[in-house]
């Protein structure tokens, strides 16, 4: 950091490149220091960090899903609706089949993702348009199916009203709390890292984002690959939906409203270009964490919610403006 404030010759292109690589890490350190300075112990308390550790996982998993898709050069804005749909079906699954029925939620996410992939690949409709339509449709389906009511997860069976759907699953509620939720998130992050950085599938995500035509020329079936990518990302959304169900203690038709934008922001804050070809799991985690910390810090500092949204938007533009290597960008769309 002293580089930037010191004499300019210190910032050689090579060092600028290196610095750019570390923008997500520098940003999160600055954000933490800033809120520590403003709010002191109210921000830097065990209690608050426990809260942050509970808040981050759902966003992080959604950001993982988005990362897979963005790396290929596509985008998925339907994940908020898919989250509501999946957590509703997860809760329904538990109503029908008992605890194991939660897995229905994961597959529901996979199904929405696969549908996206099929429409994009076979009908050749751009991912933005396809997932916009799916965003609208799936949200409507959730409202229709749920009839506008929620399914609650409770500590013990409720004898109460006949209209209220509830499932007694204390284990699920405790999964939604620190430390279980944190451990689960860490395990998923580890798997995601191995998957994204080390597998043939993960490398192919980057290759498709880099030059799809070449892959077709060497005989790789990019069409089926993209369907698989959207399905895999959908399964991750389904998992996020189950975590969200545990965290929120209810499947509501409004769950995950606008959260697709947070997921995209987390990926972008993690230094991933939305044009595809590059990406990092570690930096995406940092991005999701930064977003959660900023929102949390602003709330503690007493900034009204609308203004904190403005601050988040500014942060997003600042982070990308710094981390983007403009000499490598020839066309801005």
């Amino acid at each position, binding site marked *: 950091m002293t580089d930037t404030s010191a004499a300019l010759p210190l910032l050689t292109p090579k060092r600028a490149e290196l610095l750019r690589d570390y923008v997500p890490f520098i940003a999160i350190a600055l954000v933490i220091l800033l809120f520590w300075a403003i709010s002191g112990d109210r921000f830097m308390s065990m209690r608050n960090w426990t809260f942050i550790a509970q808040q981050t996982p759902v966003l992080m998993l959604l950001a993982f899903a988005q990362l897979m898709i963005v790396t290929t050069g596509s985008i998925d804005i339907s994940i908020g609706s898919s989250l509501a749909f999946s957590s509703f079906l997860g809760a329904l699954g538990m109503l029908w089949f008992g605890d194991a029925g939660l897995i229905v939620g994961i597959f529901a996410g996979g199904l929405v993702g696969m549908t996206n992939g099929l429409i994009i690949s076979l009908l050749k409709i751009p991912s933005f348009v396809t997932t916009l339509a799916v965003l609208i449709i799936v949200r409507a389906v959730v409202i229709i199916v749920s009839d506008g009511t929620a399914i609650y997860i409770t500590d013990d069976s409720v004898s109460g009203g006949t209209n209220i759907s509830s499932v007694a699953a204390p284990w699920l509620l405790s999964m939604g709390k620190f430390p279980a939720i944190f451990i689960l998130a860490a395990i998923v992050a580890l798997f995601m890292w*191995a998957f994204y950085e*080390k*597998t*043939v*599938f993960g*490398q*192919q995500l*980057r*290759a498709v*984002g*880099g*030059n799809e*035509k*070449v*892959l077709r*020329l*060497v*005989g*790789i079936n990019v069409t089926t690959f993209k369907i698989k990518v959207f399905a895999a990302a959908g399964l991750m959304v389904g998992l996020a939906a189950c975590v969200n169900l545990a965290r929120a203690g209810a499947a509501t038709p409004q769950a995950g409203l606008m959260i697709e934008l947070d997921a995209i922001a987390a990926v972008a804050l993690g230094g991933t270009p939305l044009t595809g*070809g*590059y990406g990092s799991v570690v930096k995406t985690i940092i991005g999701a964490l930064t977003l959660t910390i900023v929102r949390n810090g602003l709330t503690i500092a007493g900034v009204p919610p609308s203004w904190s949204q403005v601050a988040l938007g500014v942060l997003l533009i600042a982070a990308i403006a710094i981390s983007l290597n403009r000499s490598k960008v020839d066309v801005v769309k």
Partner: protein
Amino acid sequence: MNNHDASPLLLVEHVSKSFGGVQALRDGSFDLNRGEVLAIVGGNGAGKSTLIKVVAGAHVPDGGRIVIKGREVLRSEHSVSHMQARGIEVVYQDLALVPNMTAPYNLFLGRIPKKWGIFVDERAMREKTRDVLAKLNVTTVQDLSQPISSMSGGQQQSIAIGRAIAWGSDIVILDEPTAALGPNETAEVERLVEDVRDQHGTSFILISHNLDQVRRLADRILVTHHGVTSREFKRDEITSDRLVKAITLGE
């Protein structure tokens, strides 16, 4: 090939191809022997691009036949992967590489070695890449962890040609290999082609608009005109003048 006089490595006879009523290729015929560089020249729309795409398996011909090492390619099996399996690789002018990926990844494109079923065997890839680069005498590519977009055009084209020969191909089709390169890099690629031909006996089909390059590299020069492979010259018997006449007038 112990009986190399008997049958050529590749024989293309009277191949034709139309696209929705437009006959891009009327009669493409040539043969190619082991260790030979055959150049195909012709104006725009003369059919040379269609001809090599048929040979590469990307287009199924309407008529004619292709025989590789004495065995005819059946219509039903005519595909890129089949031609690759029979030893034909193409280095396309600008579509050959994935710019954001490393040299090893590009070399292994479509053939990534796996470890435990799903993981990339990075060590095997790096070792084989060093092998291939050493075989090609390419010493300028050192850092194998960089994306190839950070390399020079000549280095990138070396990787592309390396990929074509790394998997034991007998025939490499070069589609305008130096059109986008500067003079030094062009010389580098030309040296590479000659080295590979001399050391490994690989045959090349060279598509180029650069007639000086064609006369430097090719043993024989095939001229296409209006969709017909109309003339063929040996390297020694051709002057630039005659070549230009053949290309423009078909005579």
